[in-house]
């Protein structure tokens, strides 16, 4: 069976004052029906841009989809006309954003904002849409939903607002739900609740979820498969179990080493030294080479490694390719 959403060799560029930079460099990933794909990677590696490209929401200018293909159930989205994309957005593909505090319009009630999403895609009356919105608020666990529906965003806490965003996103039973770091801005107890809610929603609505996160703990709980991104490329991809147990790429290993484990001896959290290089400074070699402990090959600084399966699952690393290190 063909995957539900399939991103092939997607290239996105931005015009900046350093010239045209490549934010996504030929990335491919896919998600199957009812599955959760985790997308991980450090800040700035292109996770949100991947999500926005899928939604057809790359800010343009300065952004541009330079190449590649995004197919939803066999339908090509790149280059589709804007009316069709509008129908899909919020209908078949919905998205939850990183910033619940600012993602709702301050001058409309949350009930109206959810109802709007409903009327945009379903042929129902405004009253009916509002009733549905209240039911959705109830579904995402907001107490006294009929009163809350008449509240404005500033009257709700961050966690509640993210619940509202989730209600809005699932209001039209999307096939694909993209959750872009849905819990980054929330405190820890609320984070767990939101992940539980996403799990329930997936069970009830049967949506495929693309979960973007820095949080490897969340990945181990939620994801079926994982794509690890670094500096605009997918550098490792496979089932969640395989990646968590047998990370191949030194960067993926670093990420997994960073997961704090209860009862482990060391007191300090590990971290990967260095930072992601800015896009305009990316050279010909592996973008991770500078931070990598195994960059002793000449190829590491002259040639970009390709994503190849070396036994467990695909990874893009010369070291893994040559010596299975």
């Amino acid at each position, binding site marked *: 069976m063909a995957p539900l959403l399939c991103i092939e060799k997607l290239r996105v560029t931005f015009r900046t004052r350093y010239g045209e930079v490549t934010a996504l460099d030929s990335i491919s990933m896919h998600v199957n029906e009812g599955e959760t794909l985790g997308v991980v990677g450090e800040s700035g590696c292109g996770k949100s841009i991947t999500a926005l490209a899928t*939604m057809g*929401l790359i800010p343009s200018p300065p952004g541009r989809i330079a190449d590649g293909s995004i197919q939803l159930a066999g339908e090509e989205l790149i280059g589709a006309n*804007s009316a069709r994309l*509008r*129908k*899909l*957005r*919020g*209908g078949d593909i*919905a*998205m939850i*954003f990183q*910033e619940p505090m*600012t*993602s*709702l*319009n*301050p*001058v*409309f*009630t949350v009930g109206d904002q959810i109802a*709007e*999403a409903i009327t*945009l*895609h379903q042929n129902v009356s405004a009253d009916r849409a509002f009733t549905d919105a209240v039911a959705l608020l109830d579904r995402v666990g907001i107490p006294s939903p009929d009163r809350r529906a008449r509240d*404005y965003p*500033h009257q709700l806490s961050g966690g509640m607002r993210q619940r509202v*965003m989730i209600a*809005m996103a699932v209001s039209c039973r999307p096939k694909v739900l993209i959750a872009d770091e849905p819990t980054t801005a929330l405190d820890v107890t609320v984070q767990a609740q939101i992940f539980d809610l996403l799990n329930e929603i997936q069970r009830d609505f049967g949506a495929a979820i693309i979960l973007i996160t820095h949080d490897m703990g969340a990945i181990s709980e939620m994801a079926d498969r994982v794509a690890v991104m670094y500096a605009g490329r997918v550098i490792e991809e496979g089932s969640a179990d395989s990646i968590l147990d047998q990370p191949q790429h030194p960067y993926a290993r670093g990420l997994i080493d960073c997961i704090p484990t209860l009862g482990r001896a060391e007191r300090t959290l590990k971290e990967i030294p260095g930072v992601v290089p800015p896009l305009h400074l990316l050279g010909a070699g592996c973008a991770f080479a500078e931070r990598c402990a195994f960059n002793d090959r000449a190829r590491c600084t002259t040639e970009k490694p390709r994503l190849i399966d070396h036994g467990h699952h695909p990874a893009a690393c010369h070291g893994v390719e040559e010596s299975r290190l």
Partner: protein
Amino acid sequence: MSASYLMKRVGYGLLLMLGVVILNFLLIRLAPGDPAVVIAGEMGGATEEMLESIREEYGLNKPLLTQLWIYVSGVVRFDLGQSFFFNQPVTTLIAQRILPTILLVITAQILSILLGVFLGVIASRKPGGVVSAFVSVFATIGYAVPVFWTGIMLIILFASILPIFPVEGMLSVKLRDANIFVQALDVLHHLVLPAFTLAIIYLAQYARLGRASMLEVLGSDYIRTARAKGASERSVLFKHALRNAALPILTVAGLQFGNLISGALLVETVFNWPGMGRLAFDSILRRDYPTIMGVLFFASFMVVVANILTDMSYRWADPRLRGKS
């Protein structure tokens, strides 16, 4: 919006009006020159005896504070004294002229806000485009050019080159006895040039402000959310963005109202519009102190009312301000 807040605002407004009345009175009385001489001048010739009797008649020989008390207690009963020149109660004079001024000022205000904001919104869609450049240039010119110059240029244009709008007065003489509907149309026809002349300065400012605040709002997260749920570009611009971008415009509109009234004074003079501006002009030339004070009183009354209305509409437009005081 709470009634107690409204009461508080009205209370402050009344206090402010009282301050204005007292200040006006003192400023004009402390200015050099003897009102009795002015009145006597109107009557032709002035013996010391006549001056005495004039002072007696107008209460000018009483102590200043007593005069102030008499004036203020008159104002409270809407008695603004007797015009030196027109020899009528000032209230009557103003009552005859206030409606044309209100008509002119409100029309100009609405025209400048609607047209200005519309231009601003259009310009914000393509910040580097032609409309955007036009708005910037137009805003600079509109701001720099004095209102009487615009008025005179329009008179030249429409009096001789393109005589489609009347350039003088408010109602054609031949329509004195026509029915009310025909008269209303004629008034609107006469209103076009003065209203546009008055509007043009502010129109330019609103266009610039509208463009800037739309650009800011269009970059915000909730606009991305609106697009993500599949809203049309028109709904994104005019519903989601404009409601937010209107907030700073409302503030400025409220602040500008006073300037608009003083602008109306000039425009009425240029176009011979029979409003309070003409009255102010005439009474200043003739040193008709009670009338000048009366005009100032009503102008500040309009400004105070406009400020209260602005504040109320601001609270209506921005739910975050409701319930606060």
